[in-house]
């Protein structure tokens, strides 16, 4: 039933062989040595400082949504860096391999990358930037902020949250190991039929691509379920739907998209895997396969995915603008409606990625009009932000600069998007770098919103602000880089440069390509500024410490607890009385009122099962890629056994007693006093009891409400 693979295969190692390790490659071999040296240094430092126990107990086995979110963001930043290096390589190859006179090194006729290697670089760049950088960064922020904004102690399913992170990490590990063992796909990040069929791509690159995508899709689906359930089920008392902070609304709309669209990706990739492993004929050029079926299935997921990443970014901007304009968000209801309108329309636009399929004027018109409809809710959002700033008391913090920058980029990206929505124009610029410049403008909106959010919420998570000077330096360098790279790219698109060229024939384009390369160099400076920013901020952390409400003008519930947020989030669940609860409390002079009484709280235990399952999914992906069947079976069985063992043991959780809680709160209050120079009102007596019933407890027969209390929503 399995297909014969070209080349060697043995039952023990599958397709793995020593010649699959590219030790002769002049780029990868030194990189491998550098990675090994770096890893040895990091592992050595952890061992030297005896941090393994700390790392294991506090981070690797944690189910705390804030720590998981931080790890998601670190993962995303590392992959953002890797994706940036890929981008740097692409730009350098194009400026080098320009015209027949251009030189070539490392086995390439022109430039320094062979066409096959170049194909892998741009495929990895796209996949990494969208699925392994933007997605983890946004999921990380949703993880940290959403439970705080709804006034919950944790996500609805803390263990599932950890599982989602470690499966995403497995996907990252899989794409990283493809650098040094075997090769990666050269079919672009979204793939084309039939080039990814075994016949035309006999190597393991496409298999790495399939299983990386499958793992990240699985992780994101689990995360989506968790976030939706958290928003629907875990809201604090008084938090009615129309008091929900706008970032939480945006997260809800985004995760509904994720939940419903990722299965389409999983099926599309699964069918590719069937073709490659079982010899089926879904997307083959003969035997009744259908090439465009793949493209349709992929973009049925692919376009909703675009909005899955942009909607949380819009949510972030909607939090930053009011905080630094000292005004409530303009048009809250329309903002919510716009988010859901975008989420809904996202399902009706996928064909605009391939108008040139030739589906005919009726089909193309439908998708063209549907695509233009997206401009309406997006326009509503842009005007809402503008009106939020209008007559506001604007503070140009670095976070605000990023948000305003995102607004300008959205204008550029959005208007070029409207141009591309017209099939007549689209036919002219299809697959040109004009399209590349368009969607990079849009994805940069996300990057801007993310860096704005890093600055905005960093003090909440770590208790001190990032350095404003270096943050602004980074912003201006990054913006200069964006202009220098993407303005010439728009021009080149109009001049007819197609995407993904490993060799650019037209020497008249050289000045533009050089400008883009200069832009990349400026980007490199902004990356350096980011590292300086981290260094300076950590060095000056004592000076930059903040209290609960780090900016003094923030509006929602996450600013009502200490900075850094204690692991139990809120000592006592806040009761929500207004939209923008903190702003309402501040307005009425009760923003520093503290609870008068503490009760025991129930928290979930840490678990190592999530990271074990994550590691096993990596093994499974690797074994599938290399067709090591016994290892596939072994890791799959091990995953199932671990799940059964975990479900057998359950998690009774543990109790923080009211006395412990009061002690921790008192210490937090004293730290706050040192920062702000005064002590919040505080009083009250600890009372024991009140822990909520959880696991291992016998329940009454169905039909009567469980003793732990009904659903208060």
């Amino acid at each position, binding site marked *: 039933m399995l297909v014969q693979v070209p080349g060697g295969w043995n039952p023990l190692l599958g397709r793995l062989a020593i010649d699959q390790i590219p030790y002769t490659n002049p780029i990868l071999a030194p990189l491998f040595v550098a990675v090994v040296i770096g890893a040895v240094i990091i592992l050595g430092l952890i061992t030297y400082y005896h941090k393994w126990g700390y790392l294991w107990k506090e981070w690797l086995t944690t189910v705390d949504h804030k720590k998981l979110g931080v790890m998601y963001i670190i993962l995303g930043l590392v992959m953002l860096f890797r994706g940036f290096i890929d981008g740097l390589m692409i730009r350098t190859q194009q400026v080098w391999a320009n015209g027949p006179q251009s030189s070539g090194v490392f086995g390439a006729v022109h430039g320094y990358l062979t066409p096959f290697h170049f194909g892998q670089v741009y495929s990895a760049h796209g996949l990494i930037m969208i699925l392994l950088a933007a997605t983890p960064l946004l999921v990380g922020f949703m993880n940290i902020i959403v439970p705080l904004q709804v006034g919950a102690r944790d996500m609805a*399913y803390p263990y599932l949250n950890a599982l989602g992170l470690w499966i995403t990490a497995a996907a990252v590990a899989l794409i990283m190991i493809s650098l040094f063992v075997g090769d990666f796909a050269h079919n672009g990040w979204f793939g084309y039929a039939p080039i990814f069929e075994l016949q035309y791509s006999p190597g393991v690159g496409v298999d790495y691509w399939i299983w990386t995508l499958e793992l990240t899709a699985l992780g994101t689906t689990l995360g989506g379920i968790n976030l939706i359930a958290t928003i629907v089920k875990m809201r604090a008392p008084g938090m009615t739907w129309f008091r929900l902070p706008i970032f939480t609304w945006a997260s809800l709309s985004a995760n509904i998209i994720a939940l419903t669209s990722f299965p389409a990706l999983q099926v599309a990739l699964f069918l590719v895997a069937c073709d490659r492993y079982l010899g089926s004929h879904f997307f083959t050029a003969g035997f009744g396969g259908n090439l465009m079926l793949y493209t349709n299935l992929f973009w049925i997921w692919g376009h909703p995915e675009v909005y899955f990443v942009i909607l949380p970014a819009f949510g972030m901007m909607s939090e930053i603008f009011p905080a630094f304009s000292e005004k409530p968000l303009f048009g809250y209801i329309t903002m919510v409606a716009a988010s859901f309108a975008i989420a809904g329309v996202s399902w009706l636009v996928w064909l605009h990625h391939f108008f040139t399929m030739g589906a005919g004027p009726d089909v193309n018109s439908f998708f063209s009009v549907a695509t233009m409809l997206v401009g309406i809710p997006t326009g509503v959002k842009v005007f809402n932000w503008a009106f939020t700033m209008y007559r506001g008391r604007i503070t140009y913090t670095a976070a605000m600069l990023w948000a305003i920058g995102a607004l300008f980029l959205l204008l550029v990206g959005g208007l070029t998007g409207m141009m591309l929505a017209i099939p007549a124009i689209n036919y002219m610029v299809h697959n040109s770098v004009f399209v590349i410049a368009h969607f990079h403008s849009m994805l940069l909106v996300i990057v801007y919103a993310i860096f704005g959010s890093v600055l905005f919420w960093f003090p909440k998570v770590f208790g001190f602000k990032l350095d404003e000077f270096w943050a602004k330096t980074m912003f201006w360098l990054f913006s200069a880089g964006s202009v220098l790279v993407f303005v010439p790219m728009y021009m080149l698109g109009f001049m007819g440069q197609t995407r993904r060229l490993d060799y650019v024939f037209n020497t008249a384009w050289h000045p533009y390509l050089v400008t883009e390369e200069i832009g990349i160099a400026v980007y490199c400076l902004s990356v350096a500024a980011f590292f300086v920013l981290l260094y300076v901020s950590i060095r000056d952390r004592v000076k930059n410490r903040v209290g609960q409400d780090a900016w003094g003008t923030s509006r929602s519930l996450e600013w009502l607890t200490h900075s850094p947020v204690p692991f139990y989030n809120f000592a006592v669940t806040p009761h929500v009385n207004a939209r923008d609860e903190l702003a309402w409390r501040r307005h009425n002079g009760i923003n520093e009122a503290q609870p008068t009484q503490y009760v025991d709280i129930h928290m979930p235990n840490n678990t190592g099962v999530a990271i074990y399952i994550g590691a096993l999914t990596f093994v499974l992906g690797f074994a599938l890629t290399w067709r090591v069947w016994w290892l596939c079976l072994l890791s799959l069985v091990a995953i199932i056994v671990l799940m059964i063992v975990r479900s057998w043991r359950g998690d009774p959780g543990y109790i923080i007693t009211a006395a412990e809680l009061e002690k921790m709160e008192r210490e937090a209050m004293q730290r706050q006093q040192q920062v702000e120079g005064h002590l919040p009102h505080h009083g009250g007596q600890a009372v024991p009891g009140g822990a909520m019933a959880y696991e291992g407890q016998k329940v009454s027969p169905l039909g009567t409400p469980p003793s732990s209390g009904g659903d208060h929503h």
Partner: protein
Amino acid sequence: MSAHDSPDPSKAVLWDTHYHGHDVISTRSFGYFLYLLSDGMLFATLFAAYGVLSYSHSYFNGQTPADFVHPWYTFTQTVALFLSVLAYGMGMSAVKKGNKAGLMNGLIAAFVLGVIFLGLDIHDMMDLAAHGVTVQTSGGASAFIVLTQVHAAHIFFGLLWILVMMAQVAAKGFTTDTVGRLLSLRMFWHLQAIIWVFVFVFVYLWGYMS
């Protein structure tokens, strides 16, 4: 704006000391329901692929469903699966009375009927392979086999889950954990039966008549 529907700040409740939060079973069932939505989307995508690959040219020169499906044979599978769901439902009604033996009987019956369904499916697939219909035959045959076998894989994992639940209920009785999982499994088992209705109608009946 925000202040309109807000209470008087001097009297407002700011903290909810005795807020008990959510009920564990309802939260978990909701999350599981969300997962099932994504599972439904998975099948929807597979049906879309099947629809696209069900033209006569999709079968290349090989046999079409009209040649190789046997609706009456598959009808016995349908009956087995529906009875399995019925047995599971009766087992769950025993949970309401706190009747462990009743639940166990229901689960055992559901399991046996599920095994019959899966056995018939495997036999059918082997029969098809013997007649030269495999995933490698044509695009149409690939879609037919992958759609039905993804459903069968769901049934397989459902059966595994039924076994685990029997062991858990036997060892622990009706706890928040076990009752919550029985409810989730019930939703899962029902959904697989519902999807089977679509498989039977659109793949077997329609295929037979095409």
